[in-house]
């Protein structure tokens, strides 16, 4: 009999995705290797993180346990955070997940998971009689139906490959999706302070290639649910973006417009006469520059320009400026660039607009935020790049936002989404502060 999993390719792929884009290697299959806990232990101990998959009449469920507990020799005496998930074998293919602290025992051909927080509830498999005992908590959380004499059809164990940073991994993958969805709801529900405007305008400013247009694409991708490329990006010596664009983002294809707009500008260059012209900035901030205005590095826009907006209202103004930098180039910004930035900042301060810094291209998304996703890690804050931004532009640490844009991926990643959405949320807060401070007239 072939040693191949009973999972369909689709099911396998959805499990791989659920566990954080990992690979699965089948180690044990009860129908081939024998329904025996000894066989199972022999084949699966010392294999690193493993996932046990159990096939039940109309659902499949799995238990994912991490490395340190996978030495299935005697028992997992210490309770470990284990990730339980189920997949309905019907049209909906609905997936449910729950994280429980469990201890595992092998005793007389019984594999048992005991849950410390649910006294007397356990998941237990009797290999001799193919019996399965499904705890109440599973029926509630994972919609696995069972009756007194439930049997399981098959049990497989896979090694899970491709897990980086084991500490807190399970917590991260399970909480990430939840947190991402709640951030998404927050951003959708945002309404600017006192409804002074219906949509706030966030201006992206920064050196050539810092990822301004990519940030817009990434934000749009999150709301579309797949990667998008409306703003053309890429690498070149000079700025790819030569037009001023005011992007409004829709919530899904043909959906409602979201309560913010991202204003994408040409990249800054340390040289004079190249890149965005500093003299254009006051006009942009005041809202005089129209959408799709073609920048000219040598000649700033003047009120004589045919499409110049002469009397912009509050809604046309920029409400928040995000200084965008490639985090990896932060430590070697040239003194000319720094001088230019300070000059620009003076203009921004003159207008009284809210300011944030957005650092892109961070190497490890997982290490940016604390495990609860509510705050940046101490190690991240102490990094020289963050400190530098803080020093050069005097932007408070809570307004320095770190993201990794979608540029080389093919799939959406909840942790990336969290960083991007958190950044947006902080921008909204900064904007609200600005709007609140506005003189009443």
């Amino acid at each position, binding site marked *: 009999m072939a040693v191949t999993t009973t999972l369909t390719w689709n099911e396998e792929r959805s499990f791989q995705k659920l566990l954080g884009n990992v690979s699965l290697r089948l180690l044990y299959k009860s129908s081939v290797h024998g329904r025996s806990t000894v066989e199972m232990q022999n084949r699966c101990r010392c294999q690193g993180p493993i996932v046990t998959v159990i096939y039940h009449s109309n659902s499949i469920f799995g238990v994912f346990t991490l490395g340190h507990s996978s030495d299935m020799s005697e028992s997992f005496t210490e309770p470990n955070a284990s990730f339980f998930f189920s997949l309905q074998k019907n049209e909906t293919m609905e997936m449910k997940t729950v994280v429980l602290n469990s201890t595992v025992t092998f005793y007389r051909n019984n594999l048992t998971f005991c849950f410390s927080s649910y006294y007397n509830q356990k998941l237990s498999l009797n290999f001799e009689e193919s019996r399965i005992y499904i705890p109440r908590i599973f029926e509630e959380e994972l919609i696995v139906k069972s009756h007194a004499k439930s049997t399981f059809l098959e049990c497989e164990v896979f*090694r899970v490959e491709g897990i980086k940073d084991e500490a807190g991994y399970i917590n991260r993958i399970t909480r990430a999706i939840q947190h991402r969805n709640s951030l998404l709801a927050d951003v959708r529900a945002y309404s600017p302070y006192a409804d002074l405007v219906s949509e706030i305008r966030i201006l992206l400013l920064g050196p050539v290639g810092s990822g301004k247009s990519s940030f817009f694409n990434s934000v749009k991708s999150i709301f579309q649910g797949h990667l998008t490329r409306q703003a053309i990006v*890429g690498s*070149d010596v000079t700025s790819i973006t030569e037009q001023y664009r005011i992007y409004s983002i829709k919530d899904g294809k043909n959906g409602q417009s979201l309560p913010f707009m991202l204003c994408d500008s040409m990249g800054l260059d340390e040289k004079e006469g190249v890149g965005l012209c500093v003299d254009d900035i006051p006009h942009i901030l005041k809202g005089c520059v129209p959408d799709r205005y073609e920048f000219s590095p040598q000649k700033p826009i003047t009120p004589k320009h045919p499409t110049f907006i002469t009397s912009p209202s509050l809604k046309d103004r920029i409400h928040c400026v995000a200084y965008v930098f490639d985090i990896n180039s932060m430590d070697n910004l040239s003194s000319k660039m720094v001088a230019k930035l300070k000059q620009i900042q003076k203009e921004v301060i003159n207008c009284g607009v809210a300011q944030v810094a957005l650092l892109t291209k961070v190497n490890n998304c997982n290490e940016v935020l604390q495990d609860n996703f509510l705050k940046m890690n101490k190690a991240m804050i102490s990094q020289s790049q963050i400190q530098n931004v803080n020093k050069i532009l005097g932007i408070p640490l809570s307004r320095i936002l770190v993201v990794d844009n979608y540029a080389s991926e093919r799939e959406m990643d909840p942790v990336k989404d969290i960083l991007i959405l958190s950044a947006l949320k902080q921008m909204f807060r900064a904007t609200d502060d600005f709007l609140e401070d506005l003189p009443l007239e």
Partner: protein
Amino acid sequence: MEVATRLTWMQEKKLQNYFGEKQFSLLYKASVHGFSTDRLLQICSNQGPTLTVIYSEDQIVGAYMQKDYGEGNYLIAVFVFQETTITECKVGPFKLPMLFDKNVDGNLEVSIHLKEKTMYFNKNAMEKLGLSQIYISFQDCEVFRCEDLLDERKMSGLTELKESLLCAIRNYIPYGGLVHKVRILLLGPVGAGKSSFFNSVRSIFRGHVTNQALVGSDPTGTSEKVNLKCLLLINFITHSIHFNLQTYFIKDGKDNNTLPFILCDTMGLSEKEGLDMDDIPYILEGTTISVLYHIHPCMNCIGNHTVCPLLKDRIHCVAFVFSANSVGQLSHEMVEKIKRIRRELIKSDVVHVVLLTHVDTLDLITKGDLIDVYKCVPVKLQAVHRKLGFPLSDIFVVSNYTSEWELEPVIDVLILSALKEMLRAADDFLENFPLEKTGRCV
């Protein structure tokens, strides 16, 4: 300690191909699970075909077994893998677990003794394998289960995926209903596989391999020949426009409805001749396409190409097509030409993506690899990214139908996935298109 193989990607790939497009699943690694024959057999018995690999200081030696470590006598394929060559000899037949027995009577051709970390050969085997001594001491031993890269399970998964992609593409409605069909322009060097891509797309929707667009390896570009009729007509009237564009409606095999996209094939780009750079703005605006419509009804209309081109006649997405084989060796002139075209596209806000064709012909890449192709060609993707400045996520890998007689789900899925992304890119273009212009022209 992590259970991960010591084989490099290249070594693993070579061995996988050598033993017939296999996928290896590491089961046992001596340095983790212990140098013990009992442990090895506990883990690796009843796992189907296996590959045992031992690592000495400077060599990789191994044994491939087509059967379980069960009953019966079988031949074992023993091999030595040195640098890039694999030398093989068949030994046995004997009971498979005997490979790991201590060679008591010295009559076994090969034996692996885990406790001593030594592999023994008899003289005959030593000579056949081109070894210099009858034993090799090793540092580690790994056993893999060998499965077919494209087994039935994956094939049915791919077929399912193909059906869902087909359904998504058939039901695609361009953004905001601004147009009925989106126009995708294929641009690329001569021989990059533009027309083959068209043929492949058409084949998938037809349900069998077709060849409407003439393809070949003529260095001057075959598409010119396809368009010869149009070319002559146009040149007769005006020399300013070289008509070198062929648009194809693709019909859906099932109900004969046309699909919501049109592929526009061009003459290949080349350093000297080929597609004229000056034509590109006209092609993008759709001018030449409207000319095509005017050919038959009234010859005199051909000169009238200054009419406001309609949004529906425009190009909505450009796909640069490159051959994975030659993209690394593009000439400086070609790279410059492409960058110029790209600037032009950026100026007119035309969204573009890259198609990397001919991946199936790359060294070591087999049909089975197409199932997870992005993991297999990172170097090629990086080359396109660095040389031409396209973002990595805009590069799509495809394999065109060239010599195949039958459709392959794995190829279909790649092509349809790329097509789906192009339709999304067209949506991005349409969403970005200034409203006042659409108002005037639709």
